[in-house]
């Protein structure tokens, strides 16, 4: 699999509709594992990193499903960025050093990073709220790999991880949420408070650090010890996420009923700018796309399919733009090319 081939296509899985996908953009479940008898990342020599690759790569490539292997250490920097923009590897894996790799399913809804913070991190994705399906997939792959290797496991602490915050199940469950209604009605801090009460972490789905751009949030569990995998998932799918979806729907309804012209104006202006801008930063584009996405879901914009907007989340990012342009672009050239890509995607005819 050549990373360059990916840049012009959307991630195949993001465009299938999933449950509640107007609010829950995607689901992800990740498991962290380490090999018994090997040091963790900070104390691992390049030689030992290679040994880990030699153990885990064949195990991943002989699964009952076909995976493609990419040597992350060898590919170009922009290709690493591209993989990260598609969620196939983490930013830490982009910045990492030494022998490391990733095995990817063709549909891009599963990837396994080798020599990231832990020796093996496997993650499955699905559109909408489908955490159970994600868990089943990684769990089943974990079972197959476990037949070939021994993972570091402790009777009291469970699966041992380099950082104690992932200890136990090594599971990280997360959903990407689009909450423009809560934001516009000034209720977003309630969502943050609820997340805190349930021991969940909220992050901006795009952008660096704690900054959020365009009402997209990522919600994930923090407790990995003492709670079984299925329990973490059912907490999300039966308790937490349905509540958030309910609040967001109610907020959208309030907006439509109480200030239809204001909302309409916001949405149509956003679409107008996206269709006409000649220079646009990724931050501005995400803010406007958030409003257009809301417009599509509350029946204010009819001619644009949500899939087009979801695709743009990938295609407006720096590495995707540069791979598509076939050359490196400085920030101004990027803003110009980004505007062109968006205009083409959202043009009325």
């Amino acid at each position, binding site marked *: 699999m050549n990373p360059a081939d990916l840049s012009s296509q959307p991630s195949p899985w993001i465009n299938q509709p999933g449950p509640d996908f107007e609010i829950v953009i995607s689901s992800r479940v990740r498991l962290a594992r380490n090999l*018994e008898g*090997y*040091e*963790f*990342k*900070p*104390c691992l020599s390049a030689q030992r990193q290679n040994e880990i690759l030699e153990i885990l790569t064949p195990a991943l490539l002989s699964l009952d499903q076909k995976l493609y292997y990419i040597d992350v250490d060898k590919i170009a920097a922009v290709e690493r960025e591209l993989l990260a923009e598609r969620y196939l590897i983490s930013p830490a894996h982009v910045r990492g050093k030494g022998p490391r790799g990733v095995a990817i399913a063709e549909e891009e809804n599963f990837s396994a990073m080798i020599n990231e*913070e832990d020796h093996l991190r496997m993650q499955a994705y699905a559109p909408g709220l489908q955490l159970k399906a994600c868990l089943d997939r990684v*769990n089943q792959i*974990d*079972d197959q790999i*476990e*037949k070939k290797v*021994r*993972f*570091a*496991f*402790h*009777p*009291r*602490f*469970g*699966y*041992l991880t*380099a*950082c*104690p*915050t992932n*200890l*136990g*199940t090594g*599971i990280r469950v997360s959903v990407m949420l689009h909450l423009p209604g*809560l934001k516009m009605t000034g209720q*977003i*801090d309630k969502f*943050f408070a609820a997340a*805190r009460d349930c*021991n969940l*972490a*909220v*992050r*901006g789905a795009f952008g660096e*650090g*704690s*900054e*959020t751009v365009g009402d997209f*949030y990522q919600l994930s569990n*923090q*407790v990995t*010890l*003492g*709670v*079984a*995998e299925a*329990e973490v998932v059912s907490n999300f799918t039966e308790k937490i996420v349905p509540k958030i979806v309910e609040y967001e729907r109610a907020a959208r309804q309030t907006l439509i009923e109480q200030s239809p012209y204001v909302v309409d104006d916001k949405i149509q*202006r956003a679409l107008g700018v996206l269709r006409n801008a000649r220079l646009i*930063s990724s*931050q*501005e584009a995400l*803010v406007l796309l958030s409003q257009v996405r809301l417009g599509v879901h509350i029946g204010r914009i009819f001619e644009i399919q949500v899939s087009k907007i979801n695709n743009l989340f990938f295609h407006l990012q720096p590495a995707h733009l540069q791979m598509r342009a076939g050359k490196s672009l400085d920030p101004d050239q990027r803003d110009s090319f980004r505007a062109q890509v968006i205009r083409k995607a959202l043009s009325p005819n």
Partner: protein
Amino acid sequence: MQCQNCKNQTATIHLTEITNGNRTETHLCQTCAQKQGLAVQTQIPLNELLSTLLSAQPEATGEDSTPQEEKACPRCGMTLRRFSKETLLGCPQDYEVFEKNLLPLIQRTHNGNTEHCGKTPSSVGPEQDKQIQLAALRRQLDVALRNEQYETAARLRDQIRNLQ
């Protein structure tokens, strides 16, 4: 730079927004940005927890006079001092070498839990697996009783009895 909103804290969140063609720059502190939904609280502040890891240790006893923070894992050489800086351990054995020191940290990051519950590798023998599952069921039973879910509690008690 000062936060525009409270004019008190240092601004750490810098946003550029374009509304109706006007470009506005906003500079806010973490707290104010969070209130407005422009920033989020990121995870448990692990670094804060770690900085207390070394300071709150009881005195080493007996002839072992090595300061806690210099104690090293015989296998990988990791020390608590290094761990508290890098937030990553050096090898699986560190969980035993530094167990006493790590336990409070583990407890705080995992909502008080200190026992694994959930999947076990197939290499774990049936007896050990049974103990792990029993611990998990007992914990669930505690929760059910606390929440007065008596039907669930009865079901869990049956499961525990069948396993024992």
